[in-house]
């Protein structure tokens, strides 16, 4: 893939929090290229540095060495929803239009299309605390897209939802993201989630954070959980995760 096609690129990245052991060391610095429109899942155990990596990608943290190149407006979708609680759904969307990240502000028809796609029409006058967890996440993704985000960095965005809602909201959200060719980096510890929505999965190992395994998955995204593509992807992913775990224990 040509270099210019990368929506997000990490080059020789190293990072340590002040006074603590390096999360990304210089000796095994991270290089990563994420093509435009790809959905990449970062999978790994707790405290491996997944969220730190995401904050480096977002520009919230500055690397000690190396660089992060973002080719397009980028927004983060957090684990806990980050809607402005004093604004209604409509006003939260208006906020995104007012402070759009793209060159031009989103048009009204774009707003209407997103409201329809995320089925928000009957909730526009409600405040975030009056919405279910799944609906809040849908509003947040709609807000990000309305702001013109071409790259979404998602930090376990569905982990606060119950199991059934999680599968449904994930399915609906990624259908829209794929249709719009949005580049997504999804941090998760849920292999099911990665198997359902990712083009590519990186399995991370800790101390320091490094890519232990890389796996490309086949099939149309989001994969139907009853379909063969999903079953295959999940099995493959399980096997890879197990091998990575065994290699880590042996080390």
């Amino acid at each position, binding site marked *: 893939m040509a270099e210019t096609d990368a929506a997000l690129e990490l080059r020789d990245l190293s990072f340590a929090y002040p006074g603590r052991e390096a999360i990304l060391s210089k000796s095994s610095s991270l290089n990563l290229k994420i093509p435009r429109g790809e959905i990449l899942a970062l999978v790994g155990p707790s405290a491996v540095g997944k969220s730190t990596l995401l904050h480096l990608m977002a520009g919230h943290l500055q690397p000690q060495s190396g660089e992060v190149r973002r080719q397009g407006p980028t927004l983060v979708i957090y684990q806990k929803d980050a809607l402005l609680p*004093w604004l209604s759904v409509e006003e939260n969307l208006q*906020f995104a239009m007012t402070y759009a990240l793209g060159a031009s502000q989103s048009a009204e028809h774009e707003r209407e299309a997103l409201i329809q796609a995320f089925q928000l029409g009957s909730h526009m006058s409600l405040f975030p*605390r009056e919405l279910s967890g799944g609906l809040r996440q849908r509003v947040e993704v709609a807000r990000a897209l309305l702001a013109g985000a071409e790259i979404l960095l998602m930090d376990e965005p569905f982990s606060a939802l119950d199991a059934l809602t999680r599968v449904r909201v994930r399915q609906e959200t990624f259908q829209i993201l794929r249709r719009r060719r949005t580049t997504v980096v999804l941090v998760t510890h849920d292999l099911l989630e990665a198997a359902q929505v990712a083009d590519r999965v990186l399995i991370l190992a800790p101390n320091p954070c490094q890519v232990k395994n890389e796996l490309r998955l086949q099939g149309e995204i989001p994969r139907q959980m009853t379909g063969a593509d999903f079953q295959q992807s999940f099995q493959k992913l399980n096997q890879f995760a197990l091998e990575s775990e065994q290699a880590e224990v042996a080390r």
Partner: protein
Amino acid sequence: MNVQRVSHQFLLPSVSVFLLGALWWWATASDAASVWPTPVDVARAFLSEWQSQRLWADWWASMSRILLGAGLAMVLGIGLGTLCWANATMRSALRPLVDFLRFVSPISWIPLAILWFGIGDLPVVFLIFVSVIFPMTIATMSALENMPQLLPRVAQDFRLSRSSTMLEVILPAVWPDLLTAMRVMLGMAWVVMVAAEMIAGKQGLGFGIHDARNGMRIDLVILYMLLIGATGWCMDRGLRWMQSRPRWRWKNG
């Protein structure tokens, strides 16, 4: 509106006010020679003061002082608290001073206020101001420190300017806490104002009580007390109403 809500909002408070009035009536009406006025005496005093315009002149003098003194102190307190929160140097320099001054009773400033500003509006406004600004600064800092940390991050993600971050995100994020602080401060300022007007005022509700006591008009003393309580209650209800708006209720569920 269900029966329980109506009973808690209107019926029970009305019953307790009625019982207090009845107790007052029973305690004063039985002795005709008593200096203590009955509720009817106070109602008569109200009518005569209403006609003479003095009651409203005193009420407005107090209201204008509280609006000026407490309003200015709240605005500056929010500004100072924000400055201390945002700037570590300012915090280190000012926090101990603000903490110290917060514990100096506003009443203890009365001699200095009279020496500096004489008798009249200014010393009272000054005393209201000092009673509010230091606690308001601390309350603002505390609200900012306890703000959900994701919200400033959202402003950063959307690349808001500093002024937009402050006006569109930070201030609304702490507004429910500031409203609570304002309710507390306003109650405190109201108490200080009455005391200050008794000593350093030439007009106002506090001065009205002082003047009525000198003339042994206990009916007027009670009338002014009732007006002070009713005005304070109304101001508090106004702020409570703001707190209960759907937009600002998110912190309390």
